[in-house]
């Protein structure tokens, strides 16, 4: 890890901390997830580091389990949106013609409806389970990735080295995965950091509206929802998830920035 800039190191540590807590939630959480252990909205103390929530559960425990759900759903949804969006975007750019028109116009159609509204409509008729949530979020987010990857790939597709591959008789999958993908990585990595954070905000929003992760399972959006009345009485419980989201956003994007400078290097990202 020599030569990693300080900012990236900070990002890596914080991101690792969040993901580690998410992965090890059952072992590090001080109490049970939905165990009522104290009074309503107790202030922070040695016993409850972040205090308790609206029905007396330990807030730190809820945050850890909530982070587990939120980060898991957001990561899966982002992964899905990138695989699907980038693949379709590259395909549209490489094939061109009616394939491109069909994909791009279809994409425009989906994008013309605000994401939240499409998600609310779909989730109100489907059973809200984790896989459904992930697929819905992933599909909706993939429209953004599609746009970006198509735009990037159209530029790369006209380069001489792609033409050279075509003249050699290479198939489209070689062109997409070997010629275009490695050269499109930089903008995609930059987008990845942003998209992941948007996914976290999105799942939190859905949960806040009651269409995301269902109680009693915890989730950062749901914690805000459960504790929102407390704000009126000066209870900061609802703000804790917000702090967590901000911290994670900054950390993830610091890492993405660093990955970006590495992939931008034309030496194939093996520098530093």
């Amino acid at each position, binding site marked *: 890890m020599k030569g990693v800039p300080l900012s990236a190191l900070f990002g890596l540590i914080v991101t690792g901390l969040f993901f580690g807590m998410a992965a090890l939630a059952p072992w590090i959480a001080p109490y049970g997830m939905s165990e009522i252990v104290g009074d309503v909205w107790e202030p922070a103390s040695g016993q409850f580091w972040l205090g308790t929530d609206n029905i007396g559960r330990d807030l730190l425990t809820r945050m850890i389990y909530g982070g587990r759900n939120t980060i898991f759903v957001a990561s899966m949804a982002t992964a899905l949106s990138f695989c699907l969006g980038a693949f379709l975007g590259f395909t549209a750019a490489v094939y061109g013609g009616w394939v491109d028109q069909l994909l791009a116009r279809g994409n425009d159609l989906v994008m013309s409806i605000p994401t939240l509204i499409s998600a609310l409509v779909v989730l109100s008729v489907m059973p809200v389970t984790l896989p459904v949530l992930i697929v819905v979020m992933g599909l909706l987010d993939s429209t953004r990735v599609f746009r970006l990857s198509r735009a990037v790939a159209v530029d790369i597709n006209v*380069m*001489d*080295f792609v*033409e*050279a591959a*075509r*003249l*050699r*008789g*290479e198939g489209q999958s070689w062109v997409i995965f*070997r*010629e275009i993908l*490695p*050269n499109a990585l930089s903008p995609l990595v930059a987008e990845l950091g942003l998209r992941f954070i948007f996914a976290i905000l999105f799942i939190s929003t859905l949960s806040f509206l009651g269409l995301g992760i269902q109680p009693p399972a915890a989730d950062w959006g749901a914690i805000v929802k459960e504790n929102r009345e407390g704000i009126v009485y000066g209870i900061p419980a609802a703000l804790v998830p917000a702090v967590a989201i901000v911290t994670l956003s900054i950390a993830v994007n610091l890492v993405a920035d660093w990955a970006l*400078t590495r992939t*931008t*290097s*034309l*030496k*194939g990202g*093996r*520098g*530093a």
Partner: protein
Amino acid sequence: MPDPLLSIRNLRIEATVHAPGEPSREVVIVDDVSLSLDRGKVMGLIGESGAGKSTIGLSALAYGRGGIRLTGGTITLNNREIRLADAATLRSLRGREVTYVAQSAAAAFNPAKRLMEQVIEATLHHGLMSREAAEARAIDLFRTLSLPDPETIGQRYPHQVSGGQLQRAMTAMALCPKPDLVIFDEPTTALDVTTQIDVLAAIKTAIAQTGVAALYITHDLAVVAQVSDEIMVLRHGKMVEHGTVQQIIEAPRQDYTRALISVRSIEHTEKPPSAQPLLVVQNVSARYGAMAKDVLSNVSVQVHPGQTLALVGESGSGKSTMARVITGLLPLRAGQITFDGRTLPRALKDRPREDLRQIQMIYQMADVAMNPRQTVATIIGRPLEFYFGLRGAERDARVQELLDAIELGKGYGERYPAELSGGQKQRVCIARALAAKPKLILCDEVTSALDPLVADGILKLLLDLQAREGVAYLFITHDIATVRAIADSIAVMYQGRVQRYGAKSDVLAPPFDDYTDLLLSSVPEMQIGWLERTLATRRMESAGN
């Protein structure tokens, strides 16, 4: 003796290089260069890319491009030290006492403003003349530079004039404020030879009439011999030789100068055509998309096995389109292409892999012809894998063989294209083409982007490989010297047609048709007075006018 206009003493220029993945380091770009230029004289700065010639040129404006620092020596202009001058002094000097003509006029003009507005801008900015006087002077200069319609051409936008005209408009822009010194930075390099000669003549006339001093930067010794009084040869930021034009050309003292002068002196005796041509292009016409006009019309040429056909012509003559049609990237509209006795399908996607293997292509810009994220071994190895199914050690051994063939040693396989020089990149592209064991290689301006000495090396390598592997070349170029060096037969192309076609000795021997005469006579020769003689004797006006 009066003081010189510009005097540079022991100039040292440094820059900080921030290579990705390495600590930043200082490099010396120009080291201990001195020159002095009298009023009304023209000095040519010549050298290959990276020789520091543009950097020295810009130092006369006390300007360093992107991170370049003028760290030592003195630059005296009109008896004033300017290297350490403050910004206000420099602002009053730039565009008034010293002006600059850039290589690419198309990139240097603002496309949204009329020419006149830009030509007189510096003059008005410095308050040297009233708008009317400046416009009158600009029109005078347009006339001196023999631009068409000097009265009204200033009302046009940059895209409404040709490249050669734009370059002359830029010269007018530089001369308008009546500067003492103009820096010409490769003003004709991006132009066709037939246009270059006119721009060169115009610049020479303008310099003579206005009595301005000039630094003329170029990599082409033949060009600089036409316009300068003195020449300075530079290499790796150091002065190699300095002398009058006559002395440099007729009695060079340094080996490097001699190499520059004798460049393109490869002797190649033409081979007689064989009975069975390899590639027959018959009455081919092609056009792009829904264009109403053919880019290629009724073209017929042949390439014989193991021989080279050179396609010559200026930009827009259809040379590269021809390559695209042969590869099938642009399906032909009429006519037929026969390769090795069988008719080639029109479109790339209909061709069997064997046909694709037999015809390989090398591009002009080696940088973009290789995937920047693949190593040299992958780039060369892929055709081996793809066409011959070679894997593992077998493949690596063959890659090394090919690397040896292109005179790159061990260790190059692990490099990425960004870690190669321009000439090495082009060599790797040649190896990639060779890997397929083709019978025909299409070379599209493969030496145009390279320095003369490097280009020479590439041409020698291509000739060697032809002798060894018996591969045929279709060689697309605009450079007659290259054609002389490499071709067995020549097709001269003009506006999508073959103007003249035959064996090299026939095509290059008189009597010429008008276009071939113009093309051949426009190639600068390394003789003093060549420009005037040629202009006096030629029969056809070039299209740039």
